[in-house]
Structures are given as C-alpha cells and as structure tokens.
C-alpha cells in the first residue's frame, strides 16, 4: 500500500490579510482574532494525495506542526478524506523558522514510520519561504522536486512529474520515497462535504510533543532556528491617477502608449 504523508500548515486566513499587523519591536506578525485556516497550497497537496488514493491502494497521513488550535485544520483534512492525523504541538516548538519547522516535521515523519511520498504545498501564504518542503527532504535524505504542477506517472518506484520553472517547465523522474512540493496548477482542490465531516468523527488526531519526538529542546522552536527575521514591513498599495486629455483619438493613442510602457500590452 502506498503511504502518503501530507504536511499542512495553519495560517491566518489570507482573506483577512488586511487585518494583519506587524509588531514594530519584535518584527513578528500580530494575528489578532484572524482565524487559522488551511494554507491554500496545502489544499492542492491534499487534493494530490486524495486523487492518488482514488487511483491506487493508498493511505493518507496528515501532519502539521502548530499550536493546539491548528487541530482544526488537521480535522479538516480528515474530513476531506485523510486516514490519520498528527499534530506536533508543544510550547518548545514555537517561534520555529523554516529549518526548525522542517526538522520537527521530519522527526514526526520518522516516528510515523514508513512513507512513499510526502506532499507539501510549495509555500505558505504567511511566510512564503518555499524552504520547508525541500528541508524536510534534506533531513530525511530523500529526493525533492519543488513546484510540481503535474503528476505524470506513479507506477513503480520511479515517478514522473512536471515541475514549473520561471519561464517554462521541466519533466523530472524521481525515485520515491520523495518530497514533492506542489503548485496551484496541479489540481482543483475539492470542497469539504457534510458526509466527509461525519466520517471524520471516527478518526482521532494524535498529538505529539517534544517528549514523544525525542528531540532536544535546542533543536526545535526558536532555539533551534538558525535564521531570524530581522526586519519586516507592510507594503503600502497606492493608486496613481493620471487623467489623459485630448480628443478621443489622442486619448486612445496616449492610453496605448502608457500601456505599452507599463508592459501590459
């Protein structure tokens, strides 16, 4: 049986991004009362796993590291059709950068045991480093393909996938077990269903802390983080208005000129 691990992250609802503030002293995000939701690209990761499960004999394990309230997104994945859910939650894990997050998740995956493929979203909507997926691969010493936008072949142990590049794509053959980080183009994630939510009643979420993972407290969380965010600023969006004058032809001419200059056409 194919065992698929999907790593998911609880992020502040991107639809309420407007409300996020930056603490000017600590340079951390002030989340306020914005609810935590499943990171949008992780939905594509879940969908990839669900589609494989529809084709092959597979089991889906969902793994998240986060505060106890992140349990709701693990539950959501169970309602979408995952078979098992794990939440790595411990005060010691808080403040983790991408490296410490990937380390903790990799330890979780090792403890889960066997796995054939690990799906991650390409990036999280709140940090956008694109590092966690690759770093999990590095910790587990398995191959990684980032920005997967199509899964072409899944037979045997050599899988074929298509991955995005800035100006095109590449087709990669990768030996599983491997980490695949996925893009939005990969699929169209399904929505939750009421009966899926009812089904998920039967599936418990396993909570693991620092003791269960058998890791030292200086390898996780803020203490285990080799990078720090030294500065952060919000981008102010400004609209510039320029009124074009002249006859209708002149205005059209000028508008075209402007659009060409702006690289729009």
């Amino acid at each position, binding site marked *: 049986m194919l065992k698929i691990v999907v790593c998911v992250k609880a992020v502040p609802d991107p639809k309420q991004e407007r409300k996020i503030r930056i603490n000017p002293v600590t340079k951390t995000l002030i989340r306020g009362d914005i609810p935590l939701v499943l990171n949008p690209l992780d939905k594509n990761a879940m969908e990839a796993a669900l589609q494989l499960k529809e084709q092959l004999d597979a089991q889906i394990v969902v793994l998240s590291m986060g505060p106890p309230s992140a349990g709701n997104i693990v539950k959501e994945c169970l*309602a979408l059709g995952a078979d098992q859910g794990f939440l790595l939650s411990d005060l010691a894990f808080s403040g983790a950068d991408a490296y410490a997050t990937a380390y903790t998740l990799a330890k979780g995956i090792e403890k889960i045991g066997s796995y054939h493929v690990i799906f991650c979203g390409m990036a999280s909507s709140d940090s956008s480093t694109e590092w966690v997926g690759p770093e999990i691969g590095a910790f587990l010493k398995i191959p990684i393909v980032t920005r997967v936008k199509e899964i072409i072949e899944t037979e045997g142990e050599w899988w074929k996938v298509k991955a995005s590049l800035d100006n095109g794509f590449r087709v990669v053959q990768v030996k599983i077990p491997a980490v695949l980080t996925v893009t939005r183009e990969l699929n169209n994630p399904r*929505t*939750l269903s009421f009966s899926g939510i009812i089904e998920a009643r039967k599936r418990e979420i396993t909570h693991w802390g620092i003791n269960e993972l058998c890791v030292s407290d200086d390898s996780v969380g803020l203490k285990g983080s080799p990078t720090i965010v030294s500065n952060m600023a919000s981008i102010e969006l400004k609209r510039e208005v320029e009124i074009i004058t002249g006859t209708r032809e002149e205005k059209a001419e000028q508008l075209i000129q402007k659009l060409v200059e702006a690289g729009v056409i």
Partner: protein
Amino acid sequence: MIDFTFTEEQELFRKAAREFAESKIAPKVSEMEETAKVVDEVVKALGEAEMMALTIPEEYGGLGLGYVARLIALEEISRVSVATAMMLQIFALGTEPIIRFGNQEQKQKYLPGLAKGERLATIAVTEPTGGSDPKGCRTSYKKDDDSYILNGRKCFITNSHIADTITVFAVDEENPEAFSTFVVEKGTDGFKPTHEEHKVGMRGCNTGELVFKKCRIPAENLLGEEGKGLRIAMSAIGDVGRGGMVGCALGLHTACLEASVKFANERILYGKPISKLQTIQNKLADMKIDLEAGRLLGFRAASMQDKGERASNEFAVAKYFTTEAAQRAAKTAVDIHGGYGCMEEYPVTRYLRDSAVLGPSAGTSDIMKVIIARWVLS
C-alpha cells in the same frame, strides 16, 4: 452554564457550506437574476453537496444532522443566494411531514430519493382565499374506494414547477372541519402546475400555482391519520418552515452587512472612507446588533429542536425578528451605498428585492405576533 459556541464540527459544516455556496452557487446568481428561472445546475449542485439530506434520518439515506446544521447551511447559502436558500428550505419543509408522519412504506418510498436530490419536495397549503387562515382552505378531498379525489387550487407554492413530491393540505368535501394531508406525485392525472409567478426578489426560485382537477390519488398516499391534517402541516411549518426562513434572513442580513462594510471602506468622501463617518458607523452598528440578536434567537430555537423539544414559539420570535431585521438591513445597506445603491451592478439592490420576499412565507409578521401573543397569554 449556557454554551454559546459552535462545536469544531459545526464550524466545519459552516466552512463546507460556505465553500459550496461560493464555488457552486455564486457563479449562477447572475443567470438566476436574468432569467428568473430555476437553474438546473444549482439544483443538481445542491443534491451533490448532500444539502437535501441534512435533516433526513440516516436510515433513509439522509445525514440526520438536525436543525442547527441545517440553519448553518441555509445561512451560508442565503448569504450568496437567498433564492437558492429559499428553494432548499422548502425542499426540507416539503419533506418533513413525511419524516414525522409518514408510515414505513411512505418513508421507504420517498425519503431516499429526496435525500439524494433525485426527487424534489414542496408543501402546498396556501390558497388564493388566504394563507394566514389555513382553515379557509377550499381544496377538497373525497374518499372513493381505495383512492382519494382532490379538487382545488393552491397558490404561492415554492418549487411548484420542479417538485416531484408534494405534501398537499386539503379539506374534507363533506366536513369543513376535517383536514388531511396527502402526498401527490408529479405527473398524477388531474394535477398540474399552472401559473408561474414573477416575484420582486428571490429570482431563480420558482413560485407558482398548482391545480387539482379530479385528481385521483391512491389511498396509501394519505399522510398520517385522516382528519389530522392541520396538525401535520402546521407542525412542520411551525419549526422547519419558520426555521428555514430564519436561515434565509440571517444569510441575507450577513450579506447586507458585508457589502456595506466593503463599500463604506472603499467609498472616499471628504478625503477619507465613509466608514470614518459616525453616521455610517451607527448604521453598521445597528445592522450588527440585529444580526447578533437574530443569530442568538435562531440558533437557540434550532438547538432546542435538536434536543427534541418543541420550539415553534421560539421560532416564531426568531422568524419575526430576523426577517424584519433583514429588511431593515437591506434598506440600510442600500442607503449606505448612496446612488450606487440604486444601480443593479451592486448586489445590495438584489438584497433589497430579496428582503421584500422574506416576510410572508411560513407566516407573515402579523401572524408571528398572533402566535407570540398567544404564547404570552397562555
């Protein structure tokens, strides 16, 4: 201690319903508005999303989730399309008498198809001679061997032209005090949906007239006991009907508030968004107060119903309050939009039209007060 929080599972139901409404219903709203017709894909999508199964017991292919879950779903769907929520609310109202009073055979025959959305339901009580007074009903039935013969006309019936299973309320031809309810199936000889109404709002939800002319139905289509029809019809209307309208009203109210907040933040006057003006803030606060109060009333009644308690009085209060409040909210939302509030590009114009249709269904506000006063004085 009273716990006012939704469970984690109920939050997921809300999420599921919102995702469904935004991805499957929202893209069809403009077509519904333009054609004022039921859009087939909407009905199909409701079925696929198991929306017709919510309150049908599991042993008949439903989800058996009860009335809080239903209220959540209706609220979310109505936030996007009141017309769709109305259609859905009446599917459940048409189904409920079969759940409560149907015998084994009737339940086996109808409920699984209704749960899947393969069959659509409605309830036909109102007549041209008055909806507030069901005892004024003129649609009559007469026993004839092993069948009943129905004659009469029903009006303002939601889903009139799309329903396959219709719970019909009628009076004994020989006894004006005896009422019964029957299940009439689409296609039965002598039964025909006729005139289709053009409503001011809730376009895309079908409302119309049903005619019964020597319509012969088998005796086994009698629902519950003969002569007990008033209780059968009113018991479903009292909580499922009113509760459904509460869901429609709350969703619309939420939409009005969201549109108003958005507009007030975007519209710049005197060099700043109008949301900085106290008068506008006051209006937004009023809308929010009504919404919060309405939700407490509605969910209180729904959770009583889930516990198996009678909640028709509580639903009367909730129905009165939320439908009236939604109408105020729609008017306020239009006001906040200024001249834009009169332009059809802005959804608030639809909200205003939809809000006007919330009142009568499942009993007018006057009738709610009659019921509430009866409760107070009892």
